[in-house]
């Protein structure tokens, strides 16, 4: 089956194509080069339309225990957005915490074809993958959390050999079926279980005597040497605390040239100027990033309205629970492995703090010059639900709209941010980097995020509308592996996506100390902790794609 998309304006940064008119050919699910002799089975006239690869969300909390806790917590939020079944699609609920099927439909209807759950606890990996399996139309993957698990902390504090630590990282990635590793409040989730209420970058964990800096460097170096493409994904210390920009700057400096991805950096960019001792640190972050080319970020943009925050950072979420709106929240200590905190939140445009958070996010986007190192996220649902992306894109692309919107927010907040002075407007090419090419390169997805020959046939076609919010809300056509799944912003066919993982090399002898550890301390057997391929493939319902890693190195 050969299909042809004729005459669209193509934005494909991975292949240096910037708005040129090109024909795109797809055969058997993949993009192919033009072959004059090939018979075209189906042609789509997309003249005047904008053509991009399917979008990729590299950081969105869409599956796993804490999301389902958040769903349980917020029935009244679902009642705002109940979705009926159709002949094609299942019923569910939307708004801030969409149910799994609705998550898949709505992302696809927005032109997204791949999403990555960034906080999968090893102990909860099976459930996270079960939820992702119930999320149709999208390719998916998950980042496994390490660095507050007691075993890693024991290994670091007990001076276990670095090669063995690397084996454990790699084993965990296999066991949890992960594509990357995330650290959340390094050591802090564990410290909270020992009643420590804060843990700064160089503060010692009360029991293990090691610091977040030790943990970050161990994991970052470990992943580099294991050849994992995506660098350590860091949710840093002190989330949400005024003055935490200093911690973030120190974290960047601590890397000593090691690659790192700093996630939802908006929540970590707070300075302490002004009467309220809360101001933007975005300028300092953007400045330092120019000097550290190995650091990438995503924003975690805040948008106004009701949402629910869901994080592995039990320590900071417990602290934030006093601001819960509505007043109900869940904090959990989990399996000597991790934790979680779920706190509903309503961002208000007239609130000084919330308006400043909103401004800091936008400032970060507009100040960071290299679009390849910044990804478009709201840290769904923490900053805002993912369906606000088209609005966010318009804020980035349309200076006039941004100014207009600024007039509606708390004006004092804008005095402590450089946002009103920023004139930059993102181009379509840059948006394609932020939402396609950049995340694909960072995650090592060889055949996603671009539409050159060999890529999967994941393609989004937009009407070129001057109102970019309208344009990005309702794509005209979305293809998944060459099949048309969305027309005019509505799902017309439901398919299942694949699960992307990496399989870095490890020495099998690590299973001996691991088995001892599980047998002595755990309530789950090592053999059962591990998630088998069959559980994901599930008789053909799922598919596993192993993305390449570099060969293992030693320092």
């Amino acid at each position, binding site marked *: 089956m050969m299909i042809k998309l004729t005459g669209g304006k193509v934005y494909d940064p991975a292949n240096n194509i910037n708005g040129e008119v090109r024909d795109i050919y797809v055969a058997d699910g993949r993009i192919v080069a033009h072959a004059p002799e090939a018979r075209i089975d189906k042609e789509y006239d997309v003249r005047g339309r904008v053509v991009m690869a399917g979008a990729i969300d590299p950081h969105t909390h869409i599956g796993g225990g804490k999301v389902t806790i958040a769903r349980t*917590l917020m*029935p009244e939020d679902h009642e705002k957005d109940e979705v009926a079944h159709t002949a094609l699609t299942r019923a569910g609920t939307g708004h801030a915490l969409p149910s799994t099927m609705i998550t898949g439909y709505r992302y696809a209807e927005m032109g997204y074809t791949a999403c990555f759950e960034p906080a999968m*606890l090893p102990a909860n990996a099976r459930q996270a993958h079960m939820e992702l399996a119930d999320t149709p139309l999208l390719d998916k993957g998950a980042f496994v959390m390490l660095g507050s698990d007691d075993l890693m902390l024991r290994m670091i504090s007990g001076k276990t050999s670095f090669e063995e630590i690397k084996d454990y990282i790699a084993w965990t990635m296999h066991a949890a079926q992960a594509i990357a590793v995330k650290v959340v409040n390094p050591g802090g989730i564990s410290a909270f279980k020992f009643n420590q209420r804060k843990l700064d970058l160089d503060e010692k964990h009360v029991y293990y005597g090691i610091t977040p800096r030790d943990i970050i460097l161990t994991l970052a170096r470990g992943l580099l040497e294991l050849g994992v493409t995506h660098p350590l994904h860091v949710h840093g210390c002190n989330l949400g605390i005024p003055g935490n920009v200093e911690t973030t700057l120190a974290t960047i400096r601590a890397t000593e040239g090691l690659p790192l991805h700093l996630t939802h950096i908006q929540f970590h960019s707070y300075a302490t100027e002004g009467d309220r001792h809360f101001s933007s640190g975005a300028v300092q972050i953007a400045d330092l990033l120019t000097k550290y080319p190995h650091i990438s970020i995503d924003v975690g943009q805040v948008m106004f309205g009701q949402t629910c925050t869901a994080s592995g950072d039990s320590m900071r979420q417990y602290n934030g629970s006093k601001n819960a709106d509505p007043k109900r929240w869940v904090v959990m200590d989990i399996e000597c492995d991790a934790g979680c905190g779920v706190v509903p939140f309503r961002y208000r445009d007239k609130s000084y703090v919330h308006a400043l958070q909103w401004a800091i996010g936008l400032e970060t986007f507009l100040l960071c010059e290299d679009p390849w190192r910044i990804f478009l996220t709201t840290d769904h649902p923490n900053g805002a639900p993912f369906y606000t992306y088209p609005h966010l894109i318009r804020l980035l692309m349309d200076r006039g709209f941004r100014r207009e919107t600024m007039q509606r927010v708390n004006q004092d907040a804008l005095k402590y941010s450089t946002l009103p002075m920023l004139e930059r407007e993102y181009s379509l090419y840059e948006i394609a980097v932020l939402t396609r090419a950049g995340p694909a390169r960072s995650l090592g997805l060889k055949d996603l995020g671009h539409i050159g020959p060999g890529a999967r046939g994941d393609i989004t076609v937009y009407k070129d509308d001057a109102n970019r919010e309208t344009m990005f809300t309702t794509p005209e056509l979305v293809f998944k592996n060459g099949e048309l799944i969305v027309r005019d912003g509505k799902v017309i066919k439901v398919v299942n996506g694949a699960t992307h993982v990496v399989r870095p090399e490890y020495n099998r002898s690590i299973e001996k100390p691991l088995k001892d550890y599980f047998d002595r301390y755990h309530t789950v057997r090592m053999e059962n902790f591990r998630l088998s391929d069959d559980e994901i493939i599930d008789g053909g319902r799922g598919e596993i794609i192993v993305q390449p890693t570099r060969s293992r190195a030693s320092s």
Partner: protein
Amino acid sequence: MTAHAEGDRPGEQGASHTYDNVTCPFCGLLCDDLQVTRTGSTLKVSNGCPRATAGFQRPLPPAKPLVRDREVSFEEAVQAAAGLIRQAKLPLYGGMASDVAGARAVLSIADRTCGVLDHALSEGQYRNFRVVQTSGWIMSTLTEVRNRADLLLIVATDVHKLHGRFFDRIVTNPHSMFEGVANKRTVVFIGEGLDTSAATGPRIEEVITLPVAKDRIPEVLAAISARVRGFPVPPPEAPEAPPAKRGGLFSALMPAVRSSSSTPAHEIAGVPFAGIDAIAEKCKKAKYGVMVWAPPALSMPQADLTVHLMTEIVRELNLHTRFAGLSLGGNEGAPSAASTCTWQTGFPLRVSFANGSPEYDSYRYNVSRMIDEGEGDLLLWVASIGTDIGLPQTKVPTVVLGTPGVRLAQPPTVYIPVGTPGIDHRGQMVRCDNVVSLPLKNLGRSQLPSAATVLAAIEAAL
């Protein structure tokens, strides 16, 4: 229908096969360290609790699909079930005792046929859900408690009877991870007639028993709550006794007031004030205390308020130390059903798809209430694990997907025997702490199809 045992080899019909690291589906703890040997269709468990042993070793009576008591082929039974569902205006999907795949299949057919779904044991679960959905909580999980707890308050629950290996695995375990932390534990039992015999051994420092009648446990909890907050019990100047008609809910919330008027001074529900004080002090001094309950055991009136009292004590203690709740129970696949329903619809069970979209009402769509009050015009009941979750009495036509030998209050209109996850087919289940889920093996006991397979066949036949 064609499931073959893992490890089965042709020509080895009579041979024994031993399976290690077997997950047990018979209670919410999902112990996964069982060793089970199968000879033919007979299973033998070498290290199970009484419930596991009874579950695995129960001889499976022969069972055939039945339509109105007449033996039929599988296909005929599926057609008959589909026919009944097609005719129904409001089908009820109950029982839901199955694994995640079974829950997915119930959700799929309930969505498609505009039905209502609920789990047989959701009454217990709702004692927790109501608290989560109004105030939230601070909770822990089994491995965390096993390694960290230095104080356990076990409330109103005969844990040893419900979960035969809980003490063995979580409380009296020989090893724990943190030197100097939780080397010794204090266990407090609050409730009458609780089996405390398993709380022994070198890890146990002290066992305290407050044999309080179940309906007065909220008073004792409220007094502990007051002491933990630093309020005197009773207040120094007791207000006038409330009028007698303000019983029930009000008195449960105001136990100090009630006790000051209705019981002799210096005790609450038979517990001396000094005893209350001692517990409150232990809670405050604990480094990692844990409040343990199993919601099905909280059969007192307004049990959700009792759960709320416990979680509020936990919340208060976290201002200065660490404390968490641990909810047990979760038998018959209840956590699997609730979790799957939550991620697929946003709501934990008791969902109606009657208008096409999920509508949630924890009172209205309580399927056992609906059955009692004659709502709905068809009941499809899934009971693939234990035999106790049988079909309730009802006047509407019934379709039962049950393990052979399941208790039935009346002969169902259609009966289709199904296998048990973790014995007759593989699967996945969610543990009582709602975090960990476990894989279940196919031990090759029978060729019975899974509930999910049968439901998919019925849905395909609609």
